[in-house]
């Protein structure tokens, strides 16, 4: 086997191509398809953010909802109570999430919490914050916050009642920025240090890597990108409450797509989102109006989650590096076969 190292800029070239295609694509899509594409890019962005920390730095998070919720609530509270544009709110949310990641990462790593225990720790912290949020008066406790409708389309308020296509371009921009960050990091010293830490912390430290510092940086960066996704969701859905923002299902949904697509690969989260998001929507539609012989499942929530669970088990068992990893091995095998011919 031979792993060919990619030329320096190939991922950027592919990204440029993908961006052009995605930029033009909605011109040929129905309103329904565009709203589906918004969800695909939204999940791909969250997957990118999670992948940076879990895939590259190897710090598996089961509580990414905490960053997501911080982003959603920061921009929403700033907008509703202080009339601050969600664009600024998004940045503020990212900064707050990074600061939260600094404290959380430092505390967990400083006391040597690793592997499964780290994942459980992130889960516990997200749950604590969720419970805290349900009691917090200034974010309207468990009742949640509505983003008031301004009517029509407003770029300043990131609210588009008429044309969903504007949401599409917003999330496309966020997705592209997030992916540029991932690609840039993966090729930099930081990215190499992240991967060294993932492979063997002690060997990394022996090569001069400040393991505590780089692990904490991974959490901060990933948290900030995740918060941006949370702010977008609040503006798209126009309502948040503690469960929507900090709930366990958010944490689970965020990690599903990159795992299926390929953990620690640049394109895994997008591939996972392209596969799973339409599948989820199709399943929901199917459950709403099932054929007669499947009448029992009519209106049952959670069938999509069951299907996700089954896919996840299959992927973890048979494709440990996800679809992108499997595709890569297959490609290498074909190339290898050609080379020996």
């Amino acid at each position: 086997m031979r792993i060919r190292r990619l030329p320096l800029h190939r991922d950027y070239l592919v990204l440029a191509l993908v961006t052009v295609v995605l930029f033009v694509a909605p011109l040929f899509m129905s309103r329904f398809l565009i709203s589906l594409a918004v969800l695909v890019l939204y999940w791909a962005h969250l997957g990118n953010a999670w992948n940076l920390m879990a895939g590259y730095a190897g710090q598996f998070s089961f509580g990414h909802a905490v960053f997501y919720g911080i982003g959603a609530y920061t921009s929403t509270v700033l907008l509703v109570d202080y009339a601050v544009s969600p664009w600024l709110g998004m940045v503020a949310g990212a900064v707050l999430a990074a600061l939260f990641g600094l404290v959380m990462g430092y505390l967990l790593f400083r006391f040597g919490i690793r592997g499964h225990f780290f994942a459980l720790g992130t889960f516990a912290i997200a749950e604590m914050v969720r419970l805290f949020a349900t009691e917090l008066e200034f974010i309207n406790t468990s009742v949640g916050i509505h983003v008031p409708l301004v009517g029509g389309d407003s770029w300043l308020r990131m609210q588009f009642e008429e044309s969903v296509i504007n949401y599409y371009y917003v999330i496309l921009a966020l997705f592209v920025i997030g992916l540029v960050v991932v690609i840039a990091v993966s090729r930099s010293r930081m990215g190499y240090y992240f991967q060294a830490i993932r492979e063997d912390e002690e060997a990394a430290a022996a090569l001069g890597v400040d393991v505590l510092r780089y692990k904490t940086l991974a959490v901060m960066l990933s948290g900030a990108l995740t918060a941006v996704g949370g702010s977008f969701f609040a503006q798209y859905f126009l309502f948040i409450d503690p469960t929507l923002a900090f709930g366990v299902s958010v944490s689970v949904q965020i990690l599903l797509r990159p795992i299926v697509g390929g953990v620690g690969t640049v394109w895994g989260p997008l591939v996972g989102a392209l596969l799973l998001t339409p599948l989820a929507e199709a399943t929901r539609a199917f459950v709403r109006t099932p054929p007669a012989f499947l009448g029992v499942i009519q209106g049952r929530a959670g069938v999509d989650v069951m299907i996700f669970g089954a896919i996840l088990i299959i992927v973890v068992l048979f494709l440990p590096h996800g679809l992108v990893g499997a595709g890569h091995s297959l490609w290498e095998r074909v190339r290898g076969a050609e080379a020996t011919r």
Partner: protein
Amino acid sequence: MTPLLRVEGVSKRFSGLVAVNQVSLDLLEGEILGLIGPNGAGKTTLFNIISGRLAPTAGKVTFDGQVITGMPPHRVCALGVARTFQIARPFSGLTVLDNVKVGAFLRHRNAVQAEERALEVIEFTGLGQSARKPASALTAAGRKRLELARALCTEPRLLLLDEVMAGLTATESGQIVDLIHAIRDTGVTILVIEHVMKAIMRLSDRIAVLHHGELIAVDTPQSVAGDERVIEAYLGEEYTFAAD
């Protein structure tokens, strides 16, 4: 001439067991010092103390005039002390080049420069043919070379080598001995733990012998080979000191 590394009265106790007992040792700039001793003599423990992985129970380690006892491993490495591990610890998911690049990033922030430096070191350590292969595909000898290459890429002044020849054939260890000499010729001071006697006699300028955590001899290879306490410490083991 002040020594590059000074170990003074270093002891390490693990709940009742004294792994290293009152060891004092000086390393001169540019020398190769062999550290030998039966299994469990405390060699690796001493390495771990110098490299910052363990804090000693007592004593002090000074590198280039600076006390490094209790410093975390990454800071010791940044000061110029690199180590290899007894059991090679490659980053298996990365290519050989990327493994070495991790080390190169310590002195070169820029990715292109780090890659250039890594490629130089890969050539120097004889891994040129394997640069783009995954580290997991290397042979035992290849892994040992990779350990060396990664450590070397951090541009150390002192290199700690923990059994880089264990498990290799005579030819392979002969090549590693040549490589270590070549590294020393670039101005790196080397402290090497080794079980392969023939190799360490050929390799070292001086040899230090640890036994039950205590340093029982530090001298030239010839003198150590004839030292009665050393022979006694090894009695019943298959090592022979006869230089061939």
